C-alpha cells in the first residue's frame, strides 16, 4: 500500500514538473541571476593538441572568495556545468605550455576544458564526427557571497593541430644533431679524422697471439642485443677485425649467438674477414653458431662451452645484461684472458672486476671505429664528442647564468632557461 502511494506521489511530481518546465523560464528559478560583462573572458583552442581541448581564461579579481561555475554548450541552449573553480586557484601559470606558445605571465584565471570528458563522448565517435573541429560555447556563473551573476558567452572551435609547438625545443635538438652529423660525415669522406688510442686494444692482439701459441680457441661473445643496438653494431665491426687476426694467425674462433639476425650478419663478417686475410680456405661455417633466444639459456650454453673448450681468450663485446658476470667468472676460472666492452652501464662493474681489460661505454664504439677506420663509425664518434662538448659548455654556462639570475631575483630568465630545456 505504502508503495502504491509512493509511486503515485512520484508520478504526480514528475508530471507536474514536465508540465511546469516549458512554462517556467530559467531565470525565475534563480531570481538573482544578473548578466554581467566579465573582463578579458576568452575561449581558445588548446595549442598543439589533437583537437579535444580548449582553454577558457579571464581576468583575475581582487575578491578571493569568488567562485566560478564554468558552463559549456554546443548550441547556446543546453548548458552543462564543467566544474566550479575558486578565484586564483588555477591560472595561466598552471598550464604546462612553454613560453613561446603561451603567455604565463598574464594574470588570468584559466581552465582547461576536455571535450570528450565533459560531454562523455567516446574517442572514436568524437574524431569521426568532429574531424573538422568542435564548436563550443562557454560562459561563467560568478558566485560571490551576495549574488550569482552570469557572464557573456564566448565561443571557439577545437581543432586538431599538425605540429606540437611545445616540442619545438626537442625538434631543434634533433635537427641540430642531424646537421652536425651530416657535416661531419661530408668532412670524414674528405680526410681521415683523428681518434685517440684506446687502452686495452693492444690486448686484443696479445690475446689472439696467446691463443695461437697455446693452440686453444678464442670465444667471442657478441651479447644479447639486436642489430638496432649501437653496441651490437660496434661489436660486429670489432668481430671483423678480430676475425682477420685469427685468420692471419691461423687460430681458432667460436662465436655463439643469441639473435638470429646478428647471427647472419656475423657469418658474413667472418667470411669477409677470412677473405681479407687471404685465408678463405680456413673459413668454416661452424665458427658462428646460433644458441637460443632466451637470456639465461644462452648464458648457460656459453658457460658450458667455455668450460668444455677451455679457451685461451674470451671477448665479451656488445649488449650485456645480467649474464655478464655469469660469463666472465666462468671465463676467469677457465684461465682465459678476458677482454670485455659494453655500453650497459650497470653491467660494467662486473666486467671491470672480472676481466683483464674492459672498454667502458663509448669506448666500445670508439674501439669499433678505431680498429675498422670505417668513416661512418668515426664520424658518429665525432658527433658524440660534439654532443659532449655541447653538454659541457651549456651546463657550465647555464649554471652560471642561473646562479646570477636567481641571485638577482630575475625569475623570468631562470624560468625561460628551464622552459627551453623542459621535455614535454
Amino acid at each position, binding site marked *: 500500500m505504502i508503495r502504491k502511494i509512493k509511486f503515485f506521489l512520484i508520478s504526480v511530481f514528475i508530471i507536474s514538473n514536465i508540465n511546469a518546465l516549458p512554462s517556467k523560464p530559467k531565470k525565475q528559478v534563480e531570481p538573482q541571476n544578473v548578466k554581467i560583462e566579465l573582463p578579458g573572458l576568452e575561449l581558445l583552442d588548446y595549442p598543439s593538441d589533437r583537437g579535444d581541448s580548449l582553454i577558457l581564461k579571464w581576468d583575475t579579481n581582487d575578491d578571493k572568495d569568488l567562485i566560478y561555475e564554468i558552463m559549456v554548450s554546443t548550441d547556446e541552449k543546453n548548458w552543462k556545468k564543467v566544474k566550479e573553480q575558486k578565484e586564483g586557484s588555477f591560472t595561466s601559470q598552471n598550464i604546462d605550455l612553454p613560453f613561446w606558445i603561451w603567455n604565463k605571465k598574464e594574470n588570468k584565471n584559466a581552465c582547461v576544458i576536455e571535450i570528450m*570528458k565533459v560531454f562523455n563522448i567516446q574517442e572514436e565517435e568524437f574524431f569521426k564526427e568532429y574531424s573538422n573541429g568542435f564548436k563550443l560555447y562557454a560562459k561563467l556563473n560568478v558566485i560571490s557571497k551576495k549574488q550569482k551573476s552570469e557572464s557573456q558567452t564566448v565561443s571557439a572551435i577545437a581543432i586538431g593541430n599538425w605540429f606540437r609547438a611545445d616540442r619545438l625545443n626537442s625538434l631543434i635538438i634533433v635537427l641540430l644533431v642531424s646537421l652536425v652529423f651530416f657535416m661531419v660525415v661530408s668532412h670524414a669522406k674528405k680526410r681521415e679524422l683523428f681518434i685517440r688510442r684506446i687502452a686495452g686494444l693492444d690486448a686484443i692482439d696479445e690475446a689472439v697471439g696467446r691463443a695461437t701459441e697455446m693452440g686453444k680457441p678464442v670465444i667471442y661473445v657478441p651479447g644479447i642485443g639486436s642489430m638496432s643496438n649501437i653496441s651490437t653494431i660496434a661489436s660486429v665491426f670489432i668481430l671483423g677485425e678480430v676475425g682477420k687476426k685469427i685468420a692471419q694467425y691461423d687460430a681458432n674462433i667460436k662465436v655463439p649467438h643469441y639473435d638470429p639476425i646478428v647471427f647472419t650478419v656475423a657469418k658474413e663478417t667472418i667470411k669477409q674477414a677470412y677473405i681479407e686475410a687471404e685465408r678463405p680456405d680456413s673459413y668454416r661455417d661452424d665458427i658462428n653458431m646460433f644458441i637460443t633466444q632466451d637470456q639465461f639459456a644462452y648464458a648457460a650454453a656459453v658457460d658450458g662451452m667455455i668450460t668444455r673448450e677451455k679457451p685461451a681468450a674470451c671477448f665479451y663485446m656488445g649488449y650485456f645484461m645480467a649474464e655478464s658476470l655469469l660469463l666472465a667468472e666462468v671465463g676467469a676460472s677457465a684461465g682465459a684472458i678476458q677482454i670485455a666492452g659494453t655500453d650497459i652501464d650497470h653491467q660494467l662493474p662486473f666486467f671491470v672486476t672480472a676481466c683483464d681489460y674492459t672498454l667502458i661505454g663509448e669506448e666500445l664504439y670508439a674501439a669499433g671505429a678505431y680498429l675498422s677506420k670505417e668513416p661512418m663509425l668515426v664520424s658518429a664518434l665525432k658527433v658524440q664528442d660534439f654532443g659532449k662538448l655541447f653538454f659541457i659548455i651549456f651546463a657550465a654556462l647555464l649554471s652560471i647564468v642561473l646562479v646570477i639570475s636567481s641571485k638577482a631575483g630575475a625569475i623570468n630568465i631562470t624560468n625561460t632557461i628551464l622552459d627551453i630545456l623542459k621535455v614535454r
Partner: protein
Amino acid sequence: MKETLNKLLKIDRRWLFLLLTFSILIPIIKPIGISSKSISSGVQDTYNFIEKLPEGSTIILSMDYDPSTAPELHPQSAAILKHAFKKNLKVIIMTFLAGSGGLIDEHIRNIPQQYGKEYGKDYVVLPYMPNVLAALTQMSSDIYAIYDKDKDDKILKNFEMMKKIKNYKDISAVIDITGTALLDSWIVFVGDKYGVPVMGGVTAISQVGYGPYLQKKQLKGLIGGMKGAAEYERLISEPGKGTSGIDALNIAHLLVILFIIFSNIVLLILKLS
C-alpha cells in the same frame, strides 16, 4: 708462511661456494630476526603518494618481472597491492613480460580475498602485451584500442571499474615493478610524455641507475630490492617474504665484504714480506 698465504689466495673457489650456501641456508631454516631500521626516501615517497590518493582512484600496477627477479620484486608488488586494497584503490594489473603470468596469478589468488576485493570491481588483470612501446603510447588515447579484452578474454570495457577509465587521464599513478629497463620506458613514454605520476619498484642493482630520474622527479618514488620490500611491508605493517628474506641476506653480505678485505690483507702481507 708465504706459501700458505699464496695457496690461500688461489683457494679452490668451490670452498667459497660452500660457505655461501650455508650462510644463506641457515637463516632460512633458523631466522635471525634483524629487521630493517630506517626507511629509505624512495620507499617513503612511494608510500606517501599512494597513501594520499583519494579512495576509489585507479592505479596501474605493471608487474614486469619474471621468476628470475621474483624473490626481490614479488614481495614489492604484494606490498603495493595490499596497500592499494587497504586504501580502497582500484588496480589495473598489467605486464609486458611473458614470464610474469604465473606470478600475477599467485597474487590474485591470495591477496584480494584477504581484503574482500572482487575481480572486475576492484581490480582487473590485463593480458601479456609483447610490444611495450605500442601499448604505452596507445593507452594515452584509448586503452581499449590495444586492450580490448582482459586476460581471460572477457570484454574489458564491461567491467564495473573500467566504466570511468579511458586513458592516462583517468589514472592517478603508475607503479612499474620490474627487473628490466621497462621502467625507463614508462618514464620516457608515459611519465614525461603524458604527465602521469610514475613510481617504480626495481631490483637493488638497477636502483642505483635511477638516481637521475629520481633527482629530476621524473620518478615519484622508488622501491629498491628486497630491502625496499621489507621497508614497505613495515610501513603498511604487513610483514611478509620481504621481511624474512632480508634476514638471510645479512650474513651473505657480510661474507662478501669479509672476503674482499681478507684477500686484500693477504695480498698486502705478501707484498710487504
